[in-house]
């Protein structure tokens, strides 16, 4: 065939369309990460309290999101909940919601782990000068835990970004979905277009995630050196 496969990327608006799709993935990641991390901080702090009821509920919340694959969650929130309850959200909103809840769950575990690894005598030293519960978290525990949770949090970020590749299942026009459109539209002209399109998507994801991973590793190394 006369057409070299790489041209598929530059025909018409294809390249811009793919970047547009990437932006959708990025936008969903960013929004869900911001909301999820904030919520996760709160839930993680709550999980270190002694209240057994609260603990059980939050534990179940975590387990639910840990056990149910993302694909199922997306289906559940996009198709099943609207059918049974009267809420109808757009695909992007659902994606953000599902990811945010998932991030919050994973984050709550990271936060909890970091909080309880702040040495006990730090907490006691805070109590000994009369700080109350919220003040303990605000001034002593959280600031010290933040350093411990940053690398794990960044790893979670890359996982979220990578998981956006499943969004085509609920009709989000993300980069994979647009890639799919381009591949199928050109199947006759560029039978091997798929490799170029997927190759580009591969690189795009790498470009999004690699800086984050490198940053996480840098922070981790710095922490180990300080320890």
């Amino acid at each position, binding site marked *: 065939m006369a057409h070299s496969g790489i041209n598929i990327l530059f025909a018409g608006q294809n390249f811009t369309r793919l970047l547009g799709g990437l932006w959708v993935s990025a936008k969903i990641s960013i929004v869900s990460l911001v909301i999820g991390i904030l919520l996760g901080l709160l839930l993680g702090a709550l999980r270190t309290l002694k209240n057994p009821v609260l603990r059980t509920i939050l534990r179940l919340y975590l387990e639910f999101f840990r056990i149910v694959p993302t694909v199922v969650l997306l289906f559940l929130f996009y198709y099943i909940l609207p059918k049974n309850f009267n809420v109808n959200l757009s695909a992007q909103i659902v994606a953000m919601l599902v990811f945010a809840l998932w991030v919050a769950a994973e984050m709550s575990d990271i936060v909890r782990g970091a909080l309880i690894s702040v*040495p006990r*005598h*730090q907490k*006691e*030293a*805070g*109590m*000994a*000068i*009369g*700080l*109350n519960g919220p*003040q303990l978290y605000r*001034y*002593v525990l959280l*600031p*010290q835990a933040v350093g411990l949770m940053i690398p794990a949090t960044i790893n979670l970020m890359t996982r979220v970004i990578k998981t956006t590749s499943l969004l085509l299942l609920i009709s989000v026009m993300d980069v994979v979905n647009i890639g799919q459109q381009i591949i199928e539209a050109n199947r006759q002209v560029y039978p091997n277009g798929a490799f170029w399109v997927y190759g580009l998507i591969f690189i795009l994801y790498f470009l999004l995630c690699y800086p984050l991973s490198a940053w996480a590793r840098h922070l981790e190394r710095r922490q180990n050196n300080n320890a």
Partner: protein
Amino acid sequence: MATPLLQVEHLEKSYGDVHILHDINLTIATGSVTVLLGPSGSGKSTLIRCLNGLEDFQSGQLTFSGQPVTPNAKTWQQLRQKIGMVFQSYDLFPNLTVLDNILLGPLKVQHRSKAEAQEQAVKLLKEVGLADYQDAYPRQLSGGQKQRIAIVRALALNPEFMLFDEVTASLDPEMVRGVLEVLRNLAQQKMTMLVVTHEMNFAREIADQVVFLEEGHILEQTPGQQFFANPQTERAQIFLNSMDF
């Protein structure tokens, strides 16, 4: 006799099934220095922690300044402003500067004015010889410096009673002196203190009374000089011998 600052009656403490403290009775007079001695694991730290509510206990009555203490979170949080405590491990908050460590309690717990609290903090820092370290972070300090700051942090709340749990145990020998100096000054200023220490020479010098604990029982509660010259129990004698190797 004047009202004692702290009175402990029939205090019992267990961890789960393990009985740690047995029928503790203890009186601490205002302005006196009590040294708590006893072998490792005898319950010294546990007792001292019960006295400012870091551990709860099963039964017994505490009376502070003539007021019975109802042991709940609220009471303790109030009371801890009057009862300062310094631990063995360096426990400054690593995320705050020296000054912020000291001001946290006065500003956030006692809601005092920043100017006034800071003035007091600087004065205290001067007294322990660390006026230049206001803006340092704990990691930039030596162990002995950290412990002196920890003492200042407790004092900044203007407590009536200070608890010290082996505050020199993790220090290099050369650092010990500076910290003990601070404690000695406090004693001279008639601060009421309860001190756990392994520095026998220091204990001998400073103790108005010695409480000797073994396996959670108070075996002796004797005036300081008498204890070191002539302990009442054989166990205390053996303990004293083992200490001056």
